């Protein structure tokens, strides 16, 4: 399992790697599901497989903290230009990783909490992909 405290997180564009130096967590959501079904007469004990939500992309969300200005600008440009990015979360001890290729950024990068206290630094960065490993 990937341990957050020893992980490296970020994305790459055209082979150039950019790191998110402070991350509170990474959340992966896979929307595609496989199910079993069978005829209602219930004689089939093995069933058939069908899929749902194949059209819906998977998401990976970084709860990032204090994103550097130059990275923020790259993310803003990437949203505007629909730039494809490869996103990663890698355990730097075991090499275990989550890799999402050809992602897009789903929302314009923006600080959403302007409050007193530490939460003001947190911004969710959500990517969508059909190539998650």
């Amino acid at each position, binding site marked *: 399992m990937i341990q957050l405290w020893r992980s*490296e997180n970020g994305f*790459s564009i055209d*082979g*150039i*790697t950019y790191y998110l130096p402070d991350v509170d967590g990474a959340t992966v959501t896979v929307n595609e599901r496989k199910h079993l079904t069978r005829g209602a007469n219930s004689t089939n004990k093995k069933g058939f497989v069908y899929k749902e939500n194949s059209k819906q992309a998977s998401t990976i969300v970084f709860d990032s903290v204090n994103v550097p200005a130059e990275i923020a600008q790259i993310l803003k440009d990437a949203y505007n230009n629909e730039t494809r990015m*490869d996103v*990663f979360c*890698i*355990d*730097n*001890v*075991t*090499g275990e*990783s989550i*890799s999402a*290729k050809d992602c897009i950024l789903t929302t314009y990068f923006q600080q959403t909490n302007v409050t007193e206290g530490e939460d003001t630094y947190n911004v969710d960065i959500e990517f969508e992909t059909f190539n998650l490993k």
Partner: protein
Amino acid sequence: MSGNVLLEYVMPVSRVEVISSPNLQYLHNALVIVKPKTGGGIAQTVVRITSEAELAAITDATMPAKLLKNLSYFYALPVSSLDLTAAGITNIDEYKYWTILIDPAFTDTELEGYKKPSNFNGVTGYASSDEELVIEANKVDKNSYFYSLEDNAGSNMYEAFGALLYARKGIWTNQQYMAMDLSDNIAETSTANAMFDSRVNFVLSDPEQYGNRLALFCVGNGSGASAIVAPYVYEEITTVLQGNALTWINLNEPDYTITQAKLLEDYLQKTIDAYIDNGQISGGTITVTTGNEQFILQGSIVIPEPSAIWRVKATLQEGVI
């Protein structure tokens, strides 16, 4: 000429040049070894050929011009012996190519003296009317010999390689049953079966409807035969992976860490995935890990061999059970 002194003073800018992708043109280039023109001197110099007239100026062989049906140029080397390591050949290292085609004007006996250039590890093609010679030759790694009537002077070999090397839309294809200009007098199913079983490249002729068709185009792999595209696809992927590794290391200046190894692996896997997506390979994985040696990562690449369908053996059961 330097820029404006004031501008350079206010804002000096250092430019970082990105390393370009590797040039793959050499994979599409052929070097044809021909006999020198009768009565002419033996130049022993590689010449770039773009027309029949340029070819006619250095050799009596005309069939290599069939390459120009698909290629805009090829290289030709007029020599009297097939020892391509000979000191008298002046400029063979100046050109990049991955296919050598030996003109059948060189006899089967002369072929025994064939020595590849020292740095050449590509495919060699030849055409002969000696079926046994072709059978044995095609067992050798990266040999792709054709059965050909002497009178045809390797016409079908040049045509087939020209179409292969052209690689329309950047995709290597096996050229199954492409139409060919000349017949090599193989028109019997039994002969064709024997040729196929022996992995002899040949053209099958059907005078009634289909004409002359390329019926097998394969390459030796040391233990048998492979699809003709296999060595080309492997070489291309290898070169592209090398180029992408160079670019990635240059751009990211990575430390020697597991994370960087994983990022490089992901980047290179994308290269392999592109070849899977365009159908040239059926799968492929790369793993890159740190090892015990300073500066160098350990890599392992597994790619199934590209293959080709040439025939179908089917059974028709008559009647209903």
